[in-house]
Protein backbone atom coordinates (compact mmCIF):
# COMPACT_ATOMS: atom_id res chain seq x y z
CA UNK A 1 0.00 0.00 0.00
CA UNK A 2 3.02 2.26 0.50
CA UNK A 3 3.43 2.38 -3.25
CA UNK A 4 -0.09 3.63 -3.83
CA UNK A 5 0.35 7.37 -3.92
CA UNK A 6 -2.76 8.37 -5.82
CA UNK A 7 -4.52 11.10 -3.98
CA UNK A 8 -8.22 10.65 -4.43
CA UNK A 9 -7.85 6.94 -4.56
CA UNK A 10 -9.38 5.26 -1.58
CA UNK A 11 -9.24 1.56 -0.85
CA UNK A 12 -11.45 -0.74 1.15
CA UNK A 13 -9.53 -2.55 3.89
CA UNK A 14 -10.45 -4.85 6.74
CA UNK A 15 -9.77 -4.06 10.40
CA UNK A 16 -7.49 -6.71 11.88
CA UNK A 17 -6.68 -5.20 15.26
CA UNK A 18 -7.70 -2.13 17.25
CA UNK A 19 -4.58 -0.75 18.92
CA UNK A 20 -6.18 2.06 20.89
CA UNK A 21 -5.49 5.80 20.73
CA UNK A 22 -7.75 5.98 17.67
CA UNK A 23 -5.53 3.69 15.65
CA UNK A 24 -6.01 0.26 14.14
CA UNK A 25 -4.20 -2.23 11.95
CA UNK A 26 -5.95 -2.88 8.64
CA UNK A 27 -5.19 -5.44 5.96
CA UNK A 28 -5.75 -5.51 2.24
CA UNK A 29 -4.51 -8.34 0.04
CA UNK A 30 -2.02 -9.34 2.71
CA UNK A 31 -0.63 -5.81 3.22
CA UNK A 32 -0.84 -4.67 6.84
CA UNK A 33 -0.92 -1.01 7.71
CA UNK A 34 -1.52 1.10 10.80
CA UNK A 35 -4.44 3.40 10.10
CA UNK A 36 -6.04 6.34 11.86
CA UNK A 37 -9.69 6.09 12.97
CA UNK A 38 -10.05 9.65 14.31
CA UNK A 39 -12.09 10.94 11.37
CA UNK A 40 -14.67 8.17 11.66
CA UNK A 41 -17.88 8.68 13.60
CA UNK A 42 -19.07 5.05 13.52
CA UNK A 43 -17.70 2.46 15.95
CA UNK A 44 -15.57 -0.12 14.23
CA UNK A 45 -14.73 -3.62 15.36
CA UNK A 46 -12.25 -6.24 14.25
CA UNK A 47 -13.49 -7.74 10.98
CA UNK A 48 -15.26 -4.57 9.78
CA UNK A 49 -14.39 -3.12 6.38
CA UNK A 50 -13.59 0.58 6.11
CA UNK A 51 -12.90 2.96 3.25
CA UNK A 52 -9.33 4.11 3.66
CA UNK A 53 -7.94 7.34 2.22
CA UNK A 54 -4.22 8.19 2.64
CA UNK A 55 -4.07 6.25 5.88
CA UNK A 56 -7.30 7.51 7.46
CA UNK A 57 -10.63 5.65 7.59
CA UNK A 58 -13.29 7.95 6.12
CA UNK A 59 -16.32 5.66 6.03
CA UNK A 60 -17.46 2.30 7.30
CA UNK A 61 -18.67 0.00 4.55
CA UNK A 62 -22.38 -0.71 4.94
CA UNK A 63 -22.82 -4.39 4.03
CA UNK A 64 -26.59 -4.16 3.79
CA UNK A 65 -26.34 -1.29 1.30
CA UNK A 66 -23.63 -3.10 -0.66
CA UNK A 67 -25.94 -6.14 -0.95
CA UNK A 68 -28.90 -3.92 -1.90
CA UNK A 69 -26.86 -2.35 -4.68
CA UNK A 70 -25.93 -5.76 -6.08
CA UNK A 71 -29.59 -6.82 -5.89
CA UNK A 72 -30.71 -3.63 -7.63
CA UNK A 73 -28.54 -4.58 -10.59
CA UNK A 74 -30.72 -7.63 -11.10
CA UNK A 75 -34.05 -5.80 -11.28
CA UNK A 76 -36.13 -6.78 -14.25
CA UNK A 77 -35.92 -4.35 -17.13
CA UNK A 78 -38.79 -1.92 -16.91
CA UNK A 79 -38.61 -0.86 -20.55
Amino acid at each position, binding site marked *: *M*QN*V*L*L*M*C*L*SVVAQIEEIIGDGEAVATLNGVRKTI*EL*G*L*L*EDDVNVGDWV*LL*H*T*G*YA*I*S*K*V*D*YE*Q*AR*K*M*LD*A*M*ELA*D*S*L
Partner: protein
Amino acid sequence: MKEYSDYLTELNEKTAALLTKITKYCKVLNRQINVMHVCGTHEATVSRAGIRSLLPKNLRIISGPGCPVCICPAEHITTAKELAKRGNIITTFGDMFKVPDTTLKSLSHLKAEGHDIRTVYSAMDAVKIAEKNPDKRVIWLGVGFETTAPMTAYELMKKPPSNFYVLADFRLVPPALDLLLSDPEHELTGIILPGHVTTVMGLKEYEEFPRRYGIPMTVAGFEAVEFLYALEVLLKMMVDGELGLKNSYTKVVRYEGNPKAKEVMKKVFKVVDAKWRGIGTVKQSGYDLNEDFREYNARNLIDFDISLEYDLPKGCRCGGVILGKVEPEECPHFLRRCTPETAIGPCMVSDEGTCRIRATFREVR
Protein backbone atom coordinates in the same frame (compact mmCIF):
# COMPACT_ATOMS: atom_id res chain seq x y z
CA MET B 1 -20.91 -21.73 1.07
CA LYS B 2 -20.34 -19.76 -2.11
CA GLU B 3 -17.03 -20.17 -3.87
CA TYR B 4 -14.98 -17.21 -5.06
CA SER B 5 -15.71 -18.20 -8.66
CA ASP B 6 -19.45 -18.04 -7.93
CA TYR B 7 -19.11 -14.40 -7.00
CA LEU B 8 -17.15 -13.73 -10.16
CA THR B 9 -19.85 -15.41 -12.27
CA GLU B 10 -22.51 -13.37 -10.46
CA LEU B 11 -20.60 -10.16 -11.19
CA ASN B 12 -20.05 -11.08 -14.82
CA GLU B 13 -23.77 -11.74 -15.29
CA LYS B 14 -24.64 -8.44 -13.64
CA THR B 15 -22.18 -6.53 -15.79
CA ALA B 16 -23.73 -8.08 -18.90
CA ALA B 17 -27.24 -7.20 -17.68
CA LEU B 18 -26.19 -3.60 -16.97
CA LEU B 19 -24.66 -3.21 -20.42
CA THR B 20 -27.81 -4.57 -22.06
CA LYS B 21 -29.92 -2.04 -20.14
CA ILE B 22 -27.54 0.83 -20.95
CA THR B 23 -27.75 -0.04 -24.65
CA LYS B 24 -31.54 -0.18 -24.48
CA TYR B 25 -31.85 3.17 -22.72
CA CYS B 26 -29.53 4.81 -25.26
CA LYS B 27 -31.68 3.44 -28.06
CA VAL B 28 -34.84 4.82 -26.43
CA LEU B 29 -33.24 8.23 -25.87
CA ASN B 30 -32.07 8.25 -29.51
CA ARG B 31 -29.91 11.38 -29.19
CA GLN B 32 -26.37 12.32 -28.25
CA ILE B 33 -25.79 11.76 -24.53
CA ASN B 34 -22.78 13.40 -22.90
CA VAL B 35 -22.03 12.20 -19.39
CA MET B 36 -19.25 13.87 -17.46
CA HIS B 37 -17.48 12.53 -14.40
CA VAL B 38 -15.26 14.81 -12.35
CA CYS B 39 -12.85 12.37 -10.75
CA GLY B 40 -9.47 11.10 -11.90
CA THR B 41 -10.11 7.72 -10.33
CA HIS B 42 -13.35 7.39 -12.29
CA GLU B 43 -11.37 8.01 -15.49
CA ALA B 44 -8.97 5.27 -14.41
CA THR B 45 -11.91 2.89 -13.88
CA VAL B 46 -13.42 3.74 -17.28
CA SER B 47 -10.14 3.49 -19.21
CA ARG B 48 -8.69 0.47 -17.45
CA ALA B 49 -11.85 -1.58 -17.93
CA GLY B 50 -12.28 -0.32 -21.51
CA ILE B 51 -15.83 0.81 -20.70
CA ARG B 52 -15.96 3.30 -23.60
CA SER B 53 -15.47 0.51 -26.14
CA LEU B 54 -18.53 -1.29 -24.76
CA LEU B 55 -20.94 1.63 -24.90
CA PRO B 56 -23.38 2.60 -27.68
CA LYS B 57 -22.13 5.22 -30.13
CA ASN B 58 -24.46 7.97 -28.91
CA LEU B 59 -23.16 7.77 -25.32
CA ARG B 60 -19.99 9.69 -24.61
CA ILE B 61 -18.14 9.67 -21.28
CA ILE B 62 -16.24 12.93 -20.75
CA SER B 63 -13.48 13.33 -18.22
CA GLY B 64 -13.87 16.56 -16.20
CA PRO B 65 -11.59 18.44 -13.78
CA GLY B 66 -11.04 15.59 -11.35
CA CYS B 67 -7.29 15.32 -11.09
CA PRO B 68 -6.09 17.30 -8.04
CA VAL B 69 -2.49 17.33 -9.21
CA CYS B 70 -3.39 18.63 -12.69
CA ILE B 71 -5.42 21.58 -11.44
CA CYS B 72 -2.95 22.52 -8.70
CA PRO B 73 -1.62 25.96 -9.73
CA ALA B 74 1.95 26.14 -11.03
CA GLU B 75 2.62 28.79 -8.35
CA HIS B 76 2.19 26.09 -5.71
CA ILE B 77 5.02 24.03 -7.20
CA THR B 78 7.23 27.08 -7.76
CA THR B 79 6.67 28.12 -4.13
CA ALA B 80 7.47 24.61 -2.86
CA LYS B 81 10.67 24.60 -4.93
CA GLU B 82 11.73 27.97 -3.53
CA LEU B 83 11.05 26.75 0.02
CA ALA B 84 13.11 23.61 -0.67
CA LYS B 85 16.03 25.73 -1.89
CA ARG B 86 15.96 27.59 1.44
CA GLY B 87 16.88 24.42 3.36
CA ASN B 88 13.42 23.30 4.41
CA ILE B 89 12.17 19.72 4.19
CA ILE B 90 9.31 19.35 1.70
CA THR B 91 6.88 16.46 2.25
CA THR B 92 4.37 15.55 -0.43
CA PHE B 93 2.36 12.86 -2.20
CA GLY B 94 4.20 10.98 -4.94
CA ASP B 95 2.12 12.57 -7.70
CA MET B 96 3.09 16.13 -6.78
CA PHE B 97 6.76 15.14 -6.77
CA LYS B 98 6.75 14.74 -10.55
CA VAL B 99 4.68 17.74 -11.73
CA PRO B 100 6.70 20.45 -13.46
CA ASP B 101 5.93 24.14 -13.09
CA THR B 102 6.35 26.50 -16.03
CA THR B 103 10.12 25.98 -16.04
CA LEU B 104 9.42 22.29 -16.84
CA LYS B 105 11.26 21.38 -13.65
CA SER B 106 9.58 19.48 -10.85
CA LEU B 107 10.39 18.81 -7.21
CA SER B 108 12.07 15.59 -8.37
CA HIS B 109 14.69 17.68 -10.17
CA LEU B 110 15.38 19.58 -6.96
CA LYS B 111 15.78 16.34 -5.07
CA ALA B 112 18.32 15.24 -7.68
CA GLU B 113 20.18 18.48 -6.97
CA GLY B 114 20.41 17.47 -3.32
CA HIS B 115 17.45 19.24 -1.70
CA ASP B 116 15.43 17.45 0.95
CA ILE B 117 12.14 16.39 -0.61
CA ARG B 118 10.31 13.34 0.69
CA THR B 119 7.28 11.55 -0.67
CA VAL B 120 4.90 10.23 1.96
CA TYR B 121 1.66 8.26 1.94
CA SER B 122 -0.16 10.39 4.45
CA ALA B 123 -0.30 13.72 6.32
CA MET B 124 0.53 11.87 9.54
CA ASP B 125 3.83 10.72 8.01
CA ALA B 126 4.70 14.37 7.35
CA VAL B 127 4.01 15.23 11.01
CA LYS B 128 6.25 12.34 12.10
CA ILE B 129 9.07 13.73 9.95
CA ALA B 130 8.61 17.10 11.69
CA GLU B 131 8.82 15.40 15.10
CA LYS B 132 12.07 13.67 14.14
CA ASN B 133 13.66 16.84 12.73
CA PRO B 134 12.98 19.54 15.34
CA ASP B 135 15.77 21.79 14.04
CA LYS B 136 14.31 22.00 10.53
CA ARG B 137 11.11 23.34 9.07
CA VAL B 138 8.95 20.63 7.54
CA ILE B 139 6.49 21.79 4.89
CA TRP B 140 3.53 19.63 3.96
CA LEU B 141 2.04 20.29 0.53
CA GLY B 142 -1.69 20.34 1.24
CA VAL B 143 -3.30 19.67 -2.11
CA GLY B 144 -6.33 17.69 -3.23
CA PHE B 145 -10.10 17.92 -3.13
CA GLU B 146 -12.51 17.56 -0.22
CA THR B 147 -11.51 13.90 0.20
CA THR B 148 -7.92 14.77 1.07
CA ALA B 149 -8.42 18.04 2.98
CA PRO B 150 -9.81 16.60 6.27
CA MET B 151 -6.58 14.70 7.01
CA THR B 152 -4.53 17.90 7.07
CA ALA B 153 -7.18 19.61 9.21
CA TYR B 154 -7.21 16.67 11.60
CA GLU B 155 -3.44 16.74 12.06
CA LEU B 156 -3.50 20.51 12.70
CA MET B 157 -6.24 20.06 15.33
CA LYS B 158 -3.91 17.66 17.15
CA LYS B 159 -1.37 20.50 17.60
CA PRO B 160 1.64 19.29 15.59
CA PRO B 161 5.16 20.55 16.47
CA SER B 162 5.84 24.21 15.68
CA ASN B 163 8.31 23.33 12.90
CA PHE B 164 5.42 21.77 10.89
CA TYR B 165 3.95 24.00 8.18
CA VAL B 166 1.24 23.53 5.57
CA LEU B 167 1.20 25.05 2.09
CA ALA B 168 -2.56 24.67 1.63
CA ASP B 169 -4.06 24.67 -1.85
CA PHE B 170 -7.12 22.48 -1.48
CA ARG B 171 -9.84 22.78 -4.12
CA LEU B 172 -13.60 22.30 -3.94
CA VAL B 173 -15.73 20.41 -6.44
CA PRO B 174 -19.09 22.30 -6.39
CA PRO B 175 -17.71 25.65 -7.72
CA ALA B 176 -15.97 23.80 -10.58
CA LEU B 177 -19.20 22.01 -11.37
CA ASP B 178 -21.01 25.34 -11.40
CA LEU B 179 -18.45 26.65 -13.88
CA LEU B 180 -18.80 23.62 -16.17
CA LEU B 181 -22.58 23.53 -16.14
CA SER B 182 -22.93 27.23 -16.92
CA ASP B 183 -20.47 26.95 -19.83
CA PRO B 184 -22.38 27.29 -23.13
CA GLU B 185 -19.67 25.33 -24.98
CA HIS B 186 -20.61 22.20 -23.10
CA GLU B 187 -23.66 20.14 -23.92
CA LEU B 188 -23.71 17.91 -20.89
CA THR B 189 -26.70 15.67 -20.35
CA GLY B 190 -25.67 13.93 -17.13
CA ILE B 191 -23.14 14.16 -14.32
CA ILE B 192 -21.46 11.38 -12.37
CA LEU B 193 -20.40 12.75 -9.01
CA PRO B 194 -17.14 11.69 -7.32
CA GLY B 195 -17.77 8.92 -4.79
CA HIS B 196 -15.09 9.81 -2.30
CA VAL B 197 -15.59 13.58 -2.28
CA THR B 198 -19.25 12.90 -1.44
CA THR B 199 -18.23 10.32 1.18
CA VAL B 200 -16.76 13.28 3.06
CA MET B 201 -19.10 16.13 2.06
CA GLY B 202 -22.43 14.32 1.63
CA LEU B 203 -25.04 15.15 -0.98
CA LYS B 204 -26.65 18.34 0.34
CA GLU B 205 -24.40 20.80 -1.55
CA TYR B 206 -25.29 19.13 -4.87
CA GLU B 207 -29.06 19.02 -4.39
CA GLU B 208 -29.73 22.31 -6.14
CA PHE B 209 -27.74 21.45 -9.28
CA PRO B 210 -30.17 19.13 -11.12
CA ARG B 211 -32.99 21.65 -11.11
CA ARG B 212 -30.78 24.71 -11.62
CA TYR B 213 -29.16 23.25 -14.72
CA GLY B 214 -31.80 20.74 -15.83
CA ILE B 215 -29.48 17.78 -15.60
CA PRO B 216 -29.69 14.48 -13.67
CA MET B 217 -26.84 13.42 -11.39
CA THR B 218 -25.69 10.37 -9.53
CA VAL B 219 -22.82 9.35 -7.27
CA ALA B 220 -20.73 6.43 -8.50
CA GLY B 221 -18.32 3.94 -6.97
CA PHE B 222 -14.98 2.95 -8.44
CA GLU B 223 -15.29 -0.69 -9.47
CA ALA B 224 -16.16 -1.04 -13.16
CA VAL B 225 -19.47 -2.68 -12.27
CA GLU B 226 -20.29 0.11 -9.80
CA PHE B 227 -19.60 2.72 -12.45
CA LEU B 228 -21.81 0.91 -14.96
CA TYR B 229 -24.54 0.69 -12.34
CA ALA B 230 -24.38 4.47 -11.83
CA LEU B 231 -24.46 4.99 -15.58
CA GLU B 232 -27.56 2.80 -15.81
CA VAL B 233 -29.25 4.76 -12.99
CA LEU B 234 -28.42 8.04 -14.74
CA LEU B 235 -29.75 6.90 -18.13
CA LYS B 236 -32.92 5.59 -16.49
CA MET B 237 -33.46 9.06 -15.01
CA MET B 238 -33.06 10.56 -18.49
CA VAL B 239 -35.55 8.09 -19.96
CA ASP B 240 -38.04 8.93 -17.20
CA GLY B 241 -37.37 12.66 -17.55
CA GLU B 242 -36.42 12.79 -13.89
CA LEU B 243 -34.26 15.70 -12.72
CA GLY B 244 -32.71 14.61 -9.50
CA LEU B 245 -29.71 13.47 -7.56
CA LYS B 246 -29.39 9.76 -6.79
CA ASN B 247 -26.86 7.96 -4.67
CA SER B 248 -25.53 4.90 -6.50
CA TYR B 249 -22.70 4.33 -4.02
CA THR B 250 -24.69 3.77 -0.83
CA LYS B 251 -22.22 1.33 0.66
CA VAL B 252 -20.01 4.23 1.77
CA VAL B 253 -21.75 7.52 0.84
CA ARG B 254 -24.34 8.86 3.31
CA TYR B 255 -26.56 11.87 2.71
CA GLU B 256 -24.87 13.84 5.49
CA GLY B 257 -21.35 12.79 4.49
CA ASN B 258 -18.78 12.37 7.24
CA PRO B 259 -19.72 14.84 10.01
CA LYS B 260 -16.41 14.54 11.87
CA ALA B 261 -14.37 15.27 8.74
CA LYS B 262 -16.60 18.25 7.89
CA GLU B 263 -16.26 19.61 11.43
CA VAL B 264 -12.43 19.60 11.47
CA MET B 265 -12.34 21.28 8.07
CA LYS B 266 -14.69 24.00 9.28
CA LYS B 267 -12.43 24.68 12.26
CA VAL B 268 -9.18 24.86 10.30
CA PHE B 269 -9.96 26.22 6.83
CA LYS B 270 -11.50 29.28 5.25
CA VAL B 271 -12.98 29.30 1.76
CA VAL B 272 -11.00 31.51 -0.65
CA ASP B 273 -11.00 32.44 -4.34
CA ALA B 274 -8.54 30.02 -5.88
CA LYS B 275 -6.56 29.47 -9.05
CA TRP B 276 -7.00 26.25 -11.05
CA ARG B 277 -4.17 25.38 -13.42
CA GLY B 278 -5.19 25.84 -17.04
CA ILE B 279 -8.57 27.28 -16.00
CA GLY B 280 -7.89 30.43 -14.00
CA THR B 281 -9.33 31.82 -10.78
CA VAL B 282 -12.63 30.37 -9.64
CA LYS B 283 -14.53 32.24 -6.94
CA GLN B 284 -14.80 30.62 -3.51
CA SER B 285 -13.31 27.38 -4.78
CA GLY B 286 -10.42 26.65 -2.43
CA TYR B 287 -9.41 26.11 1.17
CA ASP B 288 -6.58 27.91 2.92
CA LEU B 289 -5.75 27.86 6.63
CA ASN B 290 -7.83 30.33 8.64
CA GLU B 291 -6.49 32.92 11.08
CA ASP B 292 -6.53 30.54 14.07
CA PHE B 293 -3.96 28.36 12.33
CA ARG B 294 -1.83 31.06 10.74
CA GLU B 295 1.27 29.99 12.70
CA TYR B 296 1.25 26.79 10.61
CA ASN B 297 0.74 28.53 7.28
CA ALA B 298 3.77 28.07 5.04
CA ARG B 299 2.78 31.21 3.11
CA ASN B 300 4.11 33.21 6.06
CA LEU B 301 7.58 31.88 5.26
CA ILE B 302 7.48 33.38 1.79
CA ASP B 303 9.12 36.75 1.29
CA PHE B 304 9.30 36.49 -2.48
CA ASP B 305 6.67 37.23 -5.06
CA ILE B 306 5.46 34.40 -7.24
CA SER B 307 2.81 35.14 -9.77
CA LEU B 308 2.77 33.48 -13.13
CA GLU B 309 1.01 34.72 -16.22
CA TYR B 310 1.14 31.46 -18.14
CA ASP B 311 0.86 28.31 -16.18
CA LEU B 312 1.17 25.67 -18.90
CA PRO B 313 4.04 24.78 -21.26
CA LYS B 314 3.75 26.10 -24.81
CA GLY B 315 1.23 24.21 -26.94
CA CYS B 316 0.02 22.12 -23.98
CA ARG B 317 -3.76 21.73 -24.03
CA CYS B 318 -4.21 20.53 -20.47
CA GLY B 319 -6.58 23.44 -19.79
CA GLY B 320 -9.03 22.11 -22.37
CA VAL B 321 -8.48 18.50 -21.32
CA ILE B 322 -9.20 19.37 -17.67
CA LEU B 323 -12.46 21.07 -18.66
CA GLY B 324 -13.45 18.12 -20.85
CA LYS B 325 -13.42 20.26 -24.02
CA VAL B 326 -10.37 18.70 -25.62
CA GLU B 327 -9.61 14.98 -25.88
CA PRO B 328 -5.95 14.16 -25.13
CA GLU B 329 -5.59 12.84 -28.70
CA GLU B 330 -6.31 16.37 -29.98
CA CYS B 331 -3.25 17.84 -28.24
CA PRO B 332 -0.22 18.29 -30.54
CA HIS B 333 2.12 16.97 -27.84
CA PHE B 334 0.12 13.86 -26.91
CA LEU B 335 2.33 10.76 -27.31
CA ARG B 336 4.79 12.82 -29.31
CA ARG B 337 6.73 15.19 -27.08
CA CYS B 338 4.55 14.38 -24.08
CA THR B 339 4.54 10.73 -22.98
CA PRO B 340 4.36 9.11 -19.53
CA GLU B 341 8.18 9.03 -19.53
CA THR B 342 8.71 12.55 -20.89
CA ALA B 343 5.63 14.33 -19.55
CA ILE B 344 5.51 18.09 -19.98
CA GLY B 345 1.86 18.79 -19.11
CA PRO B 346 0.32 18.13 -15.68
CA CYS B 347 -2.36 15.82 -17.18
CA MET B 348 0.36 13.45 -18.38
CA VAL B 349 2.39 13.52 -15.17
CA SER B 350 -0.18 12.51 -12.61
CA ASP B 351 -1.46 8.95 -12.44
CA GLU B 352 -4.91 10.53 -12.24
CA GLY B 353 -4.43 12.81 -15.24
CA THR B 354 -6.63 12.14 -18.25
CA CYS B 355 -3.69 12.15 -20.70
CA ARG B 356 -1.66 9.76 -18.56
CA ILE B 357 -4.57 7.35 -18.18
CA ARG B 358 -5.38 7.45 -21.92
CA ALA B 359 -1.72 6.89 -22.77
CA THR B 360 -1.50 3.94 -20.38
CA PHE B 361 -4.73 2.24 -21.36
CA ARG B 362 -4.97 2.69 -25.12
CA GLU B 363 -8.48 2.09 -26.34
CA VAL B 364 -9.50 -0.68 -28.71
CA ARG B 365 -12.56 0.01 -30.82
